[in-house]
């Protein structure tokens, strides 16, 4: 760390009168101020006064504190932080893609429309589903779009179904989505093997019964609009009875939505459309290596069956084949089709985050079908290598075979008063981004590791060594872990005060 590793807020660097740029004196008369008084600020002290070097130093310093995939492994389970190939960026920067206007006439942007169409075909092939929209801006937006499709489908058939079933291992966005789409959420228990339980589960201590799939279906029957399931689920476990789950839901007229957050474990290996899924989203910023950015922009395309296709957001790209002479290569033209009377409408301005679509198609084309499958298999092997190396040192609360991620917990360390949080913070000292912690919530103290296919064996070994060292430290010197991180610019954050008394806006200190 540099000698001055503490950096004040830009507001605290402010000195009245300092400026970044000297503007020449105004040499024309000011126009008459016609702004209504009630729209004008009465006080204006929220802009810092800084010089250009002040600003450059401030933000450069902050940027050096950043940690990203370009610096090292980022094993954030369920988030799939994989390498963003530079080829994707190079292609996205081609002026024809980067500088085209979304309102340009179709005839002038045929290449862009062809790109969207081609990506749609790839995603349909990968998922085994017939319909697609590329509009949603990320996973949660995709979920909402998908559940709105399910709702539109039921409404079109005169149904008044009001319930969505969700396994208790789900991402928090699933129940939030269902509630936002106007549905009541009903929990489904997980079995001891971590997958959706068909039978009721009785808690050994409390005697409390959590309902399994069969009794929930029996209770709500034709009131069930659908089920939202993540596969592989948040424990990294493939829902091995997924076809049976879909069949049971379909029997009562419900539909199955798949949260595709973990689709990177299936690409090229299994197709959701083949095992009974009706609608799903894919996170292009996970599965297709587009950047996560600072939380965006992302892309969360939604795929669906032919039965749901009429309800997709509009417009959709269609391809017309121009007739040519015999033996000649057919010529295609592309256009937006807005004439979709059953559409749920738009879910994003224009056509979604186009730049992400360019990157995703680049990823698909540069890998090819075999390459995509290979990436999936490597991601699974990497996660299982970590699992095997750390098993026993860290507790595996659920023993079922896992795919692209693995969930440990702190059960072996709690006897030394070391928690998951301490382990995660200590990883920062060893130069790794901590994994996802305390999620999934059905495991106590969970530590969810997803290396992705991007990491080499050498990098995985370095991570494994760090984890082993931390386990050793927890035996020999637990206090070291309680104090971690010690090498970061800021030490352990006060998460409690941050949650109880958050300070979300800078305010001028009282004089």
């Amino acid at each position, binding site marked *: 760390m540099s000698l001055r590793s503490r950096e004040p807020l830009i507001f605290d660097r402010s000195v009245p009168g300092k400026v970044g740029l000297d503007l020449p004196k105004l040499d024309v008369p000011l126009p008459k101020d016609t702004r209504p008084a009630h729209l004008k600020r009465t006080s204006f002290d929220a802009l810092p006064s800084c010089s250009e070097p002040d600003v450059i130093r401030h933000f450069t310093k902050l940027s050096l504190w950043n940690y990203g995939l370009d610096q090292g492994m980022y094993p954030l389970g369920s988030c799939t932080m994989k390498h963003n190939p530079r080829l994707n960026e190079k292609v996205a920067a081609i002026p024809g893609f980067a500088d085209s206007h979304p309102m340009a006439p179709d005839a002038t942007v045929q290449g862009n429309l062809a790109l969207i169409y081609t990506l749609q075909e790839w995603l349909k092939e990968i998922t085994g589903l017939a319909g697609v929209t590329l509009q949603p801006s990320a996973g949660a937006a995709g979920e909402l779009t998908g559940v709105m499709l399910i709702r539109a489908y039921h409404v079109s058939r005169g149904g008044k179904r009001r319930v969505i079933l969700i396994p208790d291992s789900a991402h928090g966005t699933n129940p939030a989505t269902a509630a936002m789409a106007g549905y009541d959420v009903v929990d489904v228990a997980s079995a001891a093997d971590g997958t959706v339980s068909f039978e009721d589960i009785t808690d050994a*201590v*409390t*005697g*409390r019964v959590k309902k399994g799939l069969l009794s929930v279906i029996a209770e709500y029957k034709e009131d069930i609009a659908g089920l939202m399931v993540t596969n592989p689920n948040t424990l990294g476990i493939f829902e091995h009875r997924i076809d049976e789950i879909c069949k049971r839901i379909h029997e009562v007229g419900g539909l199955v939505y798949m949260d595709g957050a973990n689709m990177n474990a299936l690409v090229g290996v299994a197709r959701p459309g083949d095992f009974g899924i009706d609608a799903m989203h894919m996170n292009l910023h996970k599965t297709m290596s587009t950047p996560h950015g600072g939380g965006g922009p992302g892309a969360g395309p939604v795929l669906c069956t032919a039965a749901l296709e009429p309800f997709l957001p509009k417009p959709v790209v269609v391809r017309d084949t121009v007739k040519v002479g015999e033996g000649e290569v057919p010529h295609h033209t592309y256009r937006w089709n807005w004439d979709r009377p059953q559409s749920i409408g738009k879910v994003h301005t224009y056509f979604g985050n186009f730049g992400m679509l360019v990157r995703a198609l680049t990823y698909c084309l540069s890998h090819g079908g075999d390459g995509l499958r290979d990436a999936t298999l490597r991601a699974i092997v990497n996660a299982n290598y970590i699992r095997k190396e750390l098993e026993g040192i860290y507790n595996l609360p659920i023993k079922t075979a896992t795919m692209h991620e693995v969930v440990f917990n702190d059960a072996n360390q709690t006897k030394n008063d070391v928690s998951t949080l301490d382990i995660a913070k200590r990883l920062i000292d060893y130069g790794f981004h901590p994994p996802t912690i*305390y999620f999934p919530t059905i495991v106590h103290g969970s530590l969810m590791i997803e290396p992705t296919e991007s990491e080499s064996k050498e990098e995985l070994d370095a991570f494994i060594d760090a984890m082993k060292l931390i386990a050793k430290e927890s035996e020999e010197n637990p206090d070291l872990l309680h104090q971690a991180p010690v090498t970061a610019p800021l030490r352990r954050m006060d*998460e*409690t005060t941050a949650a*109880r008394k958050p300070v979300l806006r800078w305010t001028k200190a009282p004089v």
Partner: protein
Amino acid sequence: MYPADLKYTKDHEWIKIQGDGTALVGITHYAQDALGDVVFVDLPEVGDQLTHGDEFGTVESVKTVSELFAPISGAVTELNASLTDHPEYVNEDPYGKGWMLKLQISGAAQADLLDATAYEALVGSESH
């Protein structure tokens, strides 16, 4: 840790049955310790009718969110409003300032409530 004048549930709530047909409800020392620092308590409204064993609210900590289950049936007559600004009372004083709600008991007390000795034996046996 576990006052003798309270009754306990296997879900880690405590209940103080008072002579006037009312009862106070909160979560135990064990529960607040397992949850970690509490940051939010979501409670029902005054007048709501709770049924024994049903979920009546949630308690959120920096680590997790946990459901609260009614230890007894009754109508909510009072809420501990101070928890809105001071959720830390649940950690600091779970049986005092951290109480959550007051019920007008309806029906008889349930047989599944534990006394302090039985509850202490339960949490001693529950590994986490």
